[in-house]
């Protein structure tokens, strides 16, 4: 059978073999956690603890700063030693709560458990917000917002994203293998909230064991497991919706415009913990991999652990890393140092040696059109980039710069090593800034 997929895209080596066979390990607690108050898209949380306070695992340390915001919780027990700006994975210094870990890992009183079969959808959504749940595929958009479409946008389809199309990452893969039931519990909550007719779980065909496992678990539950072609960016929200349902999210629109909500499987598991067990989101699964790491692993990490700590747990580095990436190699963020904390969006940590990092000098564009063929948004990346370099933003906007999903296919495939996606991102920022000015 021909597997479902989208148009465009490319096939980077998936490099998942280094960690796909490693069962999830609990990452031991370090001596100190740096918990950023900005771990989501939207307003940062406001700190509600002071230096000297003793906090327990799951206790709120930062209050939600608005509707598009979520609270932040203490990942373990200990003493607050600082509330100050610290280096954040985004490269800026952002407010964070620093906790000296006491090692007891004492938990605060959990929130009351809710029964998804009987609880009101609004109560479930409130719980998801209180538990600080955000999109854990890496986008970290507050989940309760995604689950609150306006009434004029009826949702008929829920899609679970177990694609994990980024090379190297195996966190969602291991989660589906080892904690599939938890994902199902989360799906039940989402189905209850959205009242959808149809639920799909999309998994790339390079994870046959996860497809088998989830198919067995989902049978008889009105959830269809859809194996998808192995192609990047198969897990991009709009491409995934198109592959599974054939619907195209309109330009400038959201999945809800075509009646769909997409949630990552990791988010689903977190929702299950929050609703059924009253536990806020303070931990997640992350893949530590790359050729500079001694022992690649899938770790259950607490939010606020430093990247250096994760590397240490994986046996340290084999050679001096030349490139550090939080997230996947295609869309992840390059890091200046290992001295930054993991967040709710940290799906992976990749360390590469100098020999794996290809640094080529930029050449002239010879209009080979590789980027045009690869672009899943069907744009003309090189033309948009050319206009951007000339500061001709009207033309860049006309060519659809804002439709760019920043998947990075164009930069990856460019034989002239042009920073295409980087240039287009610059254009997007400039266009948005101009719109705000009016």
């Amino acid at each position, binding site marked *: 059978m021909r597997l479902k997929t989208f148009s465009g895209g490319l096939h980077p080596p998936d490099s998942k073999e280094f960690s796909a066979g490693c069962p999830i390990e609990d990452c031991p607690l370090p001596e100190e956690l740096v918990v950023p108050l900005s771990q989501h898209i939207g307003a940062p949380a406001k700190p509600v603890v002071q230096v000297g306070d003793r906090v327990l695992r799951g206790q709120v340390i930062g209050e939600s700063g608005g509707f598009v915001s979520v609270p932040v919780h203490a990942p373990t027990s200990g003493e607050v030693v600082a509330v100050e700006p610290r280096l954040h994975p985004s490269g800026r210094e952002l407010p964070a709560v620093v906790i000296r870990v006491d090692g007891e890992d004492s938990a605060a009183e959990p929130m009351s458990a809710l029964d998804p079969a009987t609880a009101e959808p609004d109560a479930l959504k409130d719980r998801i917000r209180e538990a600080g749940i955000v999109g854990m595929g890496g986008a970290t958009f507050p989940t309760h917002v995604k689950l609150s479409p306006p009434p004029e946008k009826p949702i008929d389809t829920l899609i679970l994203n177990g694609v994990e199309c980024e090379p190297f990452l195996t966190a969602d893969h291991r989660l589906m293998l080892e904690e599939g039931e938890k994902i199902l519990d989360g799906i039940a909550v989402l189905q209850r909230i959205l009242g959808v007719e149809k639920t799909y779980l999309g998994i790339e065909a390079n994870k046959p064991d996860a497809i088998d496992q989830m198919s067995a678990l989902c049978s008889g539950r009105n959830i269809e497991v859809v194996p998808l072609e192995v192609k990047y960016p198969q897990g991009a929200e709009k491409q995934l919706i*198109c592959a599974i349902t054939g619907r195209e999210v*309109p330009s400038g629109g959201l999945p809800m415009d075509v009646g769909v909500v997409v949630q990552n499987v990791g988010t689903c598991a977190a929702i299950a913990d929050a609703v059924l067990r009253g536990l806020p989101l303070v931990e997640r699964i992350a893949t530590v991999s790359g050729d500079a790491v001694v022992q690649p692993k899938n770790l259950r990490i607490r939010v606020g652990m430093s990247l250096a700590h994760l590397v240490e747990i994986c046996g340290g580095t084999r050679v001096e890393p030349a490139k550090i990436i939080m997230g996947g190699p295609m869309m992840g963020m390059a890091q200046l140092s290992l001295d930054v904390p993991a967040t709710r969006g940290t799906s992976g940590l990749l360390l590469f040696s100098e020999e794996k990092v290809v640094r080529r000098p930029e050449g002239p*564009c010879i209009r080979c059109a590789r980027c045009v063929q690869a672009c899943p948004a069907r744009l003309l990346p090189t033309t948009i980039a050319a206009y951007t370099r000339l500061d001709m933003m009207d033309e860049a906007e006309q060519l659809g710069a804002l439709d760019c999903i920043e998947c990075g296919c164009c930069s990856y495939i460019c034989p002239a090593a042009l920073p295409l996606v980087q240039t287009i991102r610059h254009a997007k920022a400039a266009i948005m800034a101009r719109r705000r000015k009016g």
Partner: protein
Amino acid sequence: MRQVIFALLPACAVAVYMFGLPALVTLVLCTAGCIGFEAGCQKLMRRPVAIADGSAALTGILLAMNLPPSSPWWLSLLGAFVAIVIAKQIYGGLGYNPFNPALVARVVLLISFPVQMTTWTAPTPIGSGLDAVTTATPLGRAKEAVMLHGALPADLPSGFLGSFLGDIGGCLGEVSVFALLLGGLFLLWKRVISWHIPVSFVGTVIVLSGIFWLVDPQRYPDPLFHLVTGGLMLGAFFMATDMVTSPVTTKGMLVFGVGCGLLTVLIRLFGGYPEGVSFAILLMNAATPLIDRYLKPKKFGLVQEKGGAHA
């Protein structure tokens, strides 16, 4: 670039075999000339010398392919100058030239030096013991006969195999359709080029020339003749597919190829020159920015869903 050069080697080998030393000299002069002018220009403009990218060498080989085997030495060097300095570096170098440099050079030479550019030697394979004899190209003879007598010559070579393998007079690159096809298929296989331009180009030539042939076979040669003579194969696989001067979208490539085919047949049958491939490609080069502007791919999210229930 390297793969394109590699793909041209069989055709070069056949040309040297068929035309002997003069062909080799033309090849070497054009290639060395192009590399030399490229390096000179870049030095002069204080830019990094980038002859290692192979683009100048490729232009040189393609230029040689577009010259008669007996070209005098100065014709080759002048061609190299026009191709690299006038048609490429003045516009900003690799990636910025609107027209295919080798074709610009060919057309400049053809218009400026018609005698030297149309003095053809018949193929005298190495070892055949024959001296070089001058001859006319099949396309040239066809044109002449039609102009003078209103009909095709009776003895027009219909031997498909001969022209296919390389036994006809013409430019270096017009000799062996077989060797060019081999290289073209290699490029398709390696995905250096996509099928859109060659197929639409050649397809249009077959269809259009076929229509004329069916209307009046006395006056218009059959499609097969068009296929194996002149620079069609060289043009369709190696010149029209030049990425810098052709559209970036698949729809655009198809339009570009059809346009090339259309113009080629019209010039061959009704134009002043017997061969129209180079003019056709250059004219379509000029149309490329326009094609790219109007034939953009449909952005994701602009396709209306069937039924429009959710649009």
